[in-house]
């Protein structure tokens, strides 16, 4: 049985408008996904496509508008989430706003333990905090220091230590490396992979950098405008991208070899992402798609299996 099953998840945010004319941003509009125990599911898509919202709704940081989240056989609701808080955790994107500047690192990492009342004695708590810090490559000296004394990469390690403090099984990594520079990205990613092996963690890894996602993920989901358009094995996605949006995304990755780059035909998408307040009818990608046919405007494509373990939502996928 899979660890996490999300079905028909929707999250609409109210924006502007008055009592008679409510407008909503459809940040996530009907998503189904499953995550197996011990795997890493990468979630990619451009800014504003709702990938971060998916992660936050799973943890009930936002109340879902509709849909069902089942974690390890338990239906996640606002009441049952309380008992799941020590099994699911999150690492945020911005290492500068994810740590309280008025708390020492020891208190930051110890906070989940205090909230969950995990430790009976103060000594036990301190020991556990130190254990977490050592786990992510920090040491005793850092306990009494404040977050502003650390670099971005170190701060992200502190965030990871905090998420791990309650010994969760599942961690939502909400663009954990997007704010770091490339050399530090690799360090943090490797730490995450190492921790996954040691503690048998399951990740939902949200990112917009395809190279990073390929490195860490077992499977990858591609999102566009609140919808999942393609899910498949990580290797498969790069070799046989099926959805036109995925193809365009992959062709946008810069190639290190200039000769190869010259020969490759980049797919340049026309126009901007449509507004999520009023998404296009039928297929959401049709306004920018090269394969657009009249059927795309009328009928919304559903996710169907095109190859074993490879699902795609496009009318022209075989």
């Amino acid at each position: 049985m899979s660890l996490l099953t999300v079905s028909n998840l929707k999250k609409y945010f109210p924006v502007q408008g008055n009592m008679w004319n409510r407008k909503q941003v459809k940040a996530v509009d009907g998503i189904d996904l499953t995550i197996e125990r011990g795997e890493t599911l990468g979630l990619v898509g451009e800014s504003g496509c709702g990938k971060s919202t998916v992660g936050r709704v799973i943890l009930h940081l936002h109340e879902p508008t509709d849909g069902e989240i089942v974690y390890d056989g338990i239906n996640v609701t606002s009441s049952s989430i309380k008992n799941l808080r020590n099994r699911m955790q999150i690492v945020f994107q911005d290492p500068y706003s994810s740590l309280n500047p008025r708390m020492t690192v020891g208190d930051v990492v110890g906070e989940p333990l205090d909230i969950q009342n995990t430790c009976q004695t103060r000594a036990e708590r301190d020991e556990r905090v130190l254990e977490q810090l050592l786990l992510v490559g920090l040491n005793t000296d850092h306990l009494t220091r404040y977050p502003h004394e650390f670099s971005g990469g170190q701060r992200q390690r502190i965030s990871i230590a905090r998420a791990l403090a309650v010994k969760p099984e599942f961690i939502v990594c909400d663009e954990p490396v997007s704010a770091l520079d490339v050399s530090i990205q690799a360090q943090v990613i490797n730490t995450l992979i190492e921790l996954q092996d040691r503690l048998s963690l399951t990740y939902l890894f949200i990112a917009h950098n395809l190279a990073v996602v390929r490195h860490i993920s077992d499977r990858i989901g591609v999102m566009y405008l609140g919808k999942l358009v393609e899910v498949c094995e990580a290797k498969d996605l790069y070799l046989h991208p099926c959805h036109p949006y995925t193809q365009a995304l992959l062709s946008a990755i810069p190639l290190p070899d200039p000769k190869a780059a010259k020969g490759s035909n980049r797919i340049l998408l026309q126009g901007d992402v449509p507004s999520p307040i009023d998404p296009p009818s039928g297929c959401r990608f049709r306004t920018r798609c090269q394969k657009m046919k009249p059927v795309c405007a009328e009928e919304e494509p559903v996710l169907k299996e095109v190859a074993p373990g490879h699902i795609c939502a496009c009318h022209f996928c075989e």
Partner: protein
Amino acid sequence: MEKPEKKKFMNVARPGSLQLTAEDVRTATKEEKEQLFIMRETLTYWKDAYRRFLKNKIAVAALITIVLVALFAFVGPMLSPYTYDQQIRENRYSPPSWEHPFGTDVHGRDMLVRCMVGAQISLSIGVCCAVLVVVIGVIYGAISGYCGGKVDYVMMRYLEVLYTIPDVLVIILLQISLKEPLGKIFAGTLGSSMISIFVAFALLYWVNMARMVRGQVLLVKEMEYVSAARAMGAKGSRIIFRHLIPNSIGVILVTAMFQIPMAIFIEAFLSYIGLGVSAPLASLGSLSSGAIGSFRSYPHLLLFPAMLISLIILAFNLLGDGLRDALDPRLRSE
């Protein structure tokens, strides 16, 4: 981390000699490396603010002035040979002299000691009102900002209603209505006017504080560490007291600092129009108003209390400015 070449020179046994031994070029042991690895001394928010504050000469001068005025007000009366209600009949309206540095008033009371007592009352009112404002304003503002949505809307509209009530009118009404019941409880110690100033502050003056705190809370609430705390299962009270208020402390302190001179000013104003503390107790305001009648003949009676009020209010305002620059550099008005 130190490079090995540099270490070599540090360990040379015979200075000036170019001969090297194996000892000079060995690699550093782990302990030695750790010794060289010194992190910058931890600089907390408070230390940092303290450093910035000390750089501001005007604010430091204001702080020293306040300390001196406080000593003058609270320690001074103990050292003075006179008490504030002691009448020296033969010395009425005496000008400043060695015996009475601030002169004496119509009843021959020593003005120096009366100014001390007056300053004592003014300072107490300022500080007590600031404490009241902080407690009520911070809790109200934090709850309003944290809950957001409809709760915030209702709480803010209520606050706007309070804001429109004329404050002096409320104080006068309170004073008249509270005179009877409170006069019995606090007979002799605190006048009903002081109590009514406290009550008025508790009722009305936290509005500004609540607004400032709410604004700051709205800002801090969006920070990811608050989301992280919620993901850990933190309750609202924990988020407010551990995350939101500590990160608003700069705004709170600064607003409180500006509240003190305001309270002092209002007390002085009320005393001046005759609604202040009752005789023989004196506040700086009542001393000034008493001196108005004989201003042309005895200007020193007005001069000293008026100067003290100005000094206290100026010093608190400058201190507030300095604190704002030190605690909350973003609020700096330039």
